């Protein structure tokens, strides 16, 4: 079973529907015991980093997520949920993340040429780092497959944990991967068949 963590941030309807569409047995939950019993964990999130990080801590689920990730249970962060996986974010101040993947969340505006619109909204192509093992959740994808992005901040300094980038005036981190922890900046649940392939691959990890 896959546990989609409900910590009061955003709307989990589409995410749940997309997991169901790939045949996943999933549950939306804020119950630590259900999360501990699940085979896989999904950390969603929309909105501002500070607010989401605070809600996750207040719910106490931050500790459960870190504990389970450290046990090697597959964890997928989506959009803001992906940004929460990193050390810290510089969105309106400096805020601490879960520290599961080294890196810092910074404004896109820092790296892209002026004149490009922010947020980065729309379908953009995924590029996979050359000469590196393909991240398993992208096993069924082709270089250049498009996914749907909506974000104004991105994970910087991901180094070797960068699993995919998207070109928007600069190569922005589209996905990160460290051990059993995965993060997608884009919305797989809104990325058509390509997105569903990613979710299916995540659900099939370890099978």
């Amino acid at each position, binding site marked *: 079973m896959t546990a989609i963590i409900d910590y009061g941030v955003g709307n989990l309807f589409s995410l749940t529907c997309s997991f169901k569409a790939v045949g996943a047995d999933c549950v939306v939950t804020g119950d630590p015991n259900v999360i501990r019993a699940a085979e896989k964990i999904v950390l969603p999130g929309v909105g501002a980093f500070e607010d989401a990080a605070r809600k996750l801590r207040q719910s106490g689920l931050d500790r459960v997520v870190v504990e389970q990730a450290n046990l090697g249970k597959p964890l997928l962060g989506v959009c803001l949920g992906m940004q929460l996986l990193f050390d810290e974010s510089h969105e309106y101040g400096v805020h601490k993340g879960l520290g599961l993947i080294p890196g810092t969340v910074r404004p896109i505006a820092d790296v892209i040429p002026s004149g490009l619109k922010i*947020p980065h*909204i729309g379908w953009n192509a995924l590029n996979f780092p050359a000469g590196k093992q393909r991240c398993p959740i992208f096993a069924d994808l082709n270089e250049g497959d498009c996914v749907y992005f909506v974000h104004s901040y991105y994970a910087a300094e991901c180094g070797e944990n960068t699993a995919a980038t998207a070109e928007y005036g600069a190569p922005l981190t589209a996905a990160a991967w460290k051990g059993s922890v995965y993060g997608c900046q884009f919305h797989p*649940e809104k*990325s058509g068949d390509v997105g569903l392939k990613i979710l299916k691959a995540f659900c099939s990890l370890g099978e």
Partner: protein
Amino acid sequence: MITKRIIPCLDVKNGRVVKGVNFEGLSDVNSPVALAEYYSSCGADELVFYDITASAEGRALFTDILRETAQRVFIPLTVGGGINTVDDFDRVLKCGADKVSVNSGAIKNPALITEAARKYGDQCVVISADVKRVDGQYRVFARGGRDDTGMDAIEWIKKCVSMGAGEVVLNSIDTDGVKGGFDLEMLRDVCGSVNVPVIASGGAGKSEDFIDLFKTLPWVDAGLAASIFHFGEVEIKELKTLLDKNGIIVRK
């Protein structure tokens, strides 16, 4: 780079797609869910559901349909029509909408834009404007293009963006239904300096009109149309192949 988006718009009334749909091979062409699935499979980048129902029963049917579509179609869904309060945002977002487009509701109460943007983020709030040339001015019209508000469109769009609208749909009443191409002049004059994504609407009659749009105004992010897609006059798959051949980056 980010791709140009092709967006079919479905007008829904009492749970059915209205405004002529003519497809072979679709058993129920007036079913919004079937049509949404069809467009998604053809490569549509996003769908707009426009609720033109006036009754409470129609509203309830609309959200049922939205929910059913969101369970089966995994591309961004934008909902418009009858959005007057933050509760209206809430109602459609809970049923699977990703973005909500406001038009007359924002004209009546511009604070709605800021209120919704604070609650759901700028990216969720789309300002849709129906604009027509009147006395040498670009004028904003309300209530589906029926009422001249007297407002200047350039100022109005600027104001909406500064209040938190994350995307702009500019619908030219002058070219809407004429099928002679998008209103490039109006788009340039009204949205030329807008720093959020701009969606062109009104006037597309053939595939070449989309090429003209993206070649002439490379900062326009998307083209929206309804009947030419519904009637199969323009097939999205072929349109995208043609755009690609013309050097316009699209999602294949």
